[in-house]
């Protein structure tokens, strides 16, 4: 793991953002909160940047941030079609864990988890990381075997996780029904370090830090074309004019193939809708995250008291950010059996995001057939937890042109060479 510590170049004092602290709150209280600055600037795009990143979600912004912090590159524009963090970063159920089966996955997700642990301090922005613990329920015999295997693998990888029996599950989650006829709880894979974070704050915190390093975050700027010459990209056409670049990084999740089509290469990606919903707020009743993978139901309680529920993906290609009714119905039906007390909860909101699924359900961090285009996609249904690790590994890949140890196994070539990182088998579901 590379541990480069190049200091970001200092900005002129006037444009440096003021630190957030208890003293800042006191100071602003004294002057009626008139001195708060915008967290990030909204500049007009320049004609040219050294690196252009397409997609200002968590992964794109984290890539930009670590390019600046670890590699000293700050001549960067991050282009966003909509608004910052308005795609899957703002649509997920904020679950963070690192107990994956395969070594390359465990390495990057655990790097990510350890970066999350100090992210608020690193960014001087409260991302509300809450390591409240996370249980993946085993509700079939196959899952029991699978999770015990994962627990053993995690021990070898140095990832802290443990197999727990049903009684311990009940103690950690008193509202659970262990003896459901269709979905009995036979145990669980428990990761105490896992938990949640405030998803918007992760995007906002990275954006503020990037802006402070002098990078340009350009919202409402859709890429409409990619021009290349001699196997190298020269500029991108956008709704806000043409922008030249030396390197182009595509971090667009569900729209990765749309951009790859513009650049003239193909990706092993299918885009499907993944849904989530959130209930009315209730009193604190569950202080861990519970994932029921057999039935595709994930539930945690937000700080506001809402029960946050994630479901399964649709089976067919979908770019609508909605998702289909029968999938959400299936999720809720199963969760009501596992958590009988939620049966009379009113749901307040339901939404969908477009997730990018690969054949082996593992991400792609890779160079591409176009020499100076790099791609980061395929995080599928589990991208939020990976944001800091993905940005760290991607920054190294883009800066050096070669993947470091974290990204090395996630190249595009693995689909041709048969070196899959088969997490769909590991979890039995789209994680």
């Amino acid at each position, binding site marked *: 793991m590379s541990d480069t510590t190049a200091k970001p170049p200092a900005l002129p004092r006037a444009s440096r953002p003021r630190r957030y602290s208890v003293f800042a709150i006191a100071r602003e209280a004294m002057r009626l909160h008139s001195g708060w600055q915008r967290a990030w600037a909204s500049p007009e795009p320049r004609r040219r940047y050294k690196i252009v990143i397409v997609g200002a979600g968590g992964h794109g912004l984290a890539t930009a941030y670590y390019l600046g912090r670890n590699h000293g590159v700050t001549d960067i524009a991050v282009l966003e079609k909509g608004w910052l963090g308005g795609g899957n970063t703002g649509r997920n159920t904020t679950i963070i864990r690192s107990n994956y089966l395969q070594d390359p996955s465990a390495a990057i997700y655990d790097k990510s988890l350890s970066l999350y642990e100090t992210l608020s301090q690193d960014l001087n922005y409260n991302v509300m990381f809450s390591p409240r613990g996370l249980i993946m329920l085993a509700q079939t015999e196959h899952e029991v075997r699978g999770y015990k295997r994962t627990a053993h693998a995690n021990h070898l990888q140095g990832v802290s996780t443990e197999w727990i029996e049903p009684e311990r599950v009940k103690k950690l989650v008193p509202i659970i029904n262990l003896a459901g006829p269709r979905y009995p709880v036979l145990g669980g894979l428990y990761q105490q370090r896992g938990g949640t974070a405030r998803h918007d704050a992760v995007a906002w915190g990275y954006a503020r830090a990037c802006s402070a390093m002098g990078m340009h975050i350009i919202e409402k700027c859709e890429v409409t074309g990619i021009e290349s010459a001699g196997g190298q990209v020269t500029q991108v056409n956008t709704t806000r004019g043409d922008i030249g670049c030396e390197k182009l990084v595509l971090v667009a999740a569900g*729209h990765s*193939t*749309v951009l790859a089509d513009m650049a003239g290469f193909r*990706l092993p990606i*299918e885009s499907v809708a993944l849904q989530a919903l959130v209930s009315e707020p209730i009193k604190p009743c569950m202080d861990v995250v519970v994932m029921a993978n057999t039935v595709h139901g994930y539930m945690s309680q937000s700080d506001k008291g809402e029960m946050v529920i994630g479901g399964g993906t649709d089976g067919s*290609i979908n770019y*609508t950010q909605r998702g*289909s009714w029968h999938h959400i119905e299936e999720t809720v039906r199963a969760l009501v059996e596992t958590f009988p007390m939620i049966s009379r909860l009113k749901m307040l909101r339901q939404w969908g995001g477009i997730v990018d699924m*690969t*054949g082996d359900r593992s991400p792609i961090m890779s160079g591409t057939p176009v020499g100076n285009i790099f791609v980061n996609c395929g995080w599928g249904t589990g991208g939020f937890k990976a944001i800091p690790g993905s940005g760290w590994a991607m920054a190294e890949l883009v800066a050096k042109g070669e993947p470091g140890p974290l990204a090395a196994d996630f190249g595009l070539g693995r689909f041709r060479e048969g070196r899959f990182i088969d997490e769909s088998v590991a979890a039995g579901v789209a994680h």
Partner: protein
Amino acid sequence: MLLLTCPHCGIAAEETEFNPGGEAHLKRHGPGASDEDFEGYLFLRHNVKGPVLERWRHSYGCGKWFLAARDSVTLQVYGTYPASLAHPSDEVGDSVRAAHPNWRTQI
């Protein structure tokens, strides 16, 4: 909820009576094929944002596979046709072109 018509038994039913089966008209490559061809067959997908051609199975009906033209943005179903056809039927093609005049299949 999508409404699909099975071209085999003629029944129009809700999506839950069917199962999706991924991109249609993939060119099958087997033993002796190059690594690139095999990768394309197994993994690379057009993943079109717009009209897609895909496989469906009438799982809770006649059990047969068929193909559908559907829009991945509007979720409009342009039409269905038997899996034995190498291209969408004229009727289905016209229906797609009514919404996307410049549409061409990627077969």
